[in-house]
């Protein structure tokens, strides 16, 4: 759900951003980095599609919000939030998880369904989503939602935050994909089907046992 909606929001967002692509990293009058070079725009057929981009953006914003609200409601009703919210120890542990994932440290701290780094990441992405909605509304209706624009530190800052959050999603996505690939097929299967990785582990034990052992297990 998230991936297609986010992709469409980012793509249509770029159609809009192209009309006034002013964000770049400039130090002492020298531009070091423009976010999107011309070939990138051309390749993705971005230029001169502002009206189209806005039309898509302002339709899919509803799905973006709806999807987020439903997901949060689901985690609350199902009690999943207990697995997802960072705990006090999570921040310390997340560092250890990072070291482990980078193969600097051998042992990963014990975890439940999600490890400390995941807890932080998956909670952060919800906060980011909320941030995108708030900064988005602050740019979209800066007069009617003047208090949101004020909260974001004005129209310009709101636009920069909105942009930065998008870059954040892309980074999140890249790390996420790398992690999924590293975690392997079994893990991906569990993501789709919903049962946990632990379910896979008893399998070899049963395989090594004789079939007669299955009956008492029932």
């Amino acid at each position: 759900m998230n991936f297609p909606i986010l992709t469409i929001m980012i793509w249509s967002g770029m159609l809009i951003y192209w009309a006034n692509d002013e964000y770049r990293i400039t130090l002492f009058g020298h531009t070091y980095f423009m976010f999107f070079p011309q070939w990138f725009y051309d390749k993705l057929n971005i230029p001169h599609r502002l009206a189209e981009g806005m039309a898509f953006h302002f339709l899919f914003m509803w799905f973006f919000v709806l999807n987020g609200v439903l997901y949060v409601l689901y985690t609350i009703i199902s009690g999943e939030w207990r697995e997802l919210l960072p705990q006090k120890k999570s921040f310390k542990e997340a560092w250890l998880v990072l070291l482990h994932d980078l193969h600097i440290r051998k042992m990963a701290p014990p975890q439940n369904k999600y490890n400390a780094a995941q807890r932080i990441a998956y909670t952060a992405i919800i906060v980011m989503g909320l941030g995108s909605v708030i900064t988005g509304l602050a740019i979209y209706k800066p007069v009617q939602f003047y208090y949101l624009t004020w909260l974001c530190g004005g129209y310009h800052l709101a636009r920069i935050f909105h942009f930065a959050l998008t870059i954040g999603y892309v980074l999140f996505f890249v790390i996420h994909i790398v992690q999924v690939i590293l975690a392997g097929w079994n893990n991906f299967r569990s993501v789709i089907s919903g049962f946990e990785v632990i379910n896979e582990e008893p399998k070899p034990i049963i395989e090594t046992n004789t079939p007669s052992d299955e009956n008492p297990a029932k």
Partner: protein
Amino acid sequence: MKSQSQLLKLIHQVMKTPLSKKTKLTKKPLTVEQKITRRNFISFGTFIVFGSAAYGGWKWLYNSPEETATVTAGARKPLRKALNKTELAFRRIFSNNNLVKTYPKEMAAKNVRHNSDIGSGGKIDTAAWRLQVKKQSGEVLNISIDEIKKLPKTDIIYDFKCVEGWDQISHWGGVKFSDFISHYKLDDHAQLEYVGMETPDKNYYVGIDMPSAMHPQTLLAYEVNEQPLPPKHGAPLRLIIPVKYGIKNLKRIGSISFSNDRPRDYWAEQGYDYYSGL
């Protein structure tokens, strides 16, 4: 006929078999492997079905036909529908109490950005110019710029916002549209849903919903930075409507009309949102 009855028999058999075997199955439960394959089959099936549905939905939307050209044009049919529905949702929160942020005079740009000349290119004889107000009765008021300048003046220094994404703090002076309405006793016209404005050559035109037009910060402006408007900023009179994007801020007003239907709108005909409100 024969084959049909055979088929029925076959179906009957197939239907029967799981029932008769069910009792056996409960005795011999599914192995863990079987459970896993079954659940995987169901969940991956669902994943693929939803995935293709999403892809199909996207293809349908992306290739959907363009709307038939009316006051709006140039957008995909379903997207235009969505824009109009979204407008209705956001018009609910529109209020005259929500004001555009204003700034001190020093912050106003000295060089006011100029983006387009459609409908306001070339020179204009401001002394000969008249603002035509088309009343419902068919009567047309012809108002000179000097008459407008005699009305109570309002200044506003605010952040002008373009749909392209740029914005600029600028300083405008003129008469509030609502003051103009009450001075020329057009209050009954202000009960209608929309105001339409066009340039004298009718090459640029906008339609504006009445609540936005009657917003206390909407001006018929004749000054920028306390000087009479230069031709490129819409001399002698232009619309400054801070609750809308720049595309609605028509330069060089030639005529004003009132209606319950949406008046034609230049950029709404190019695929942009009709409302374009802020």
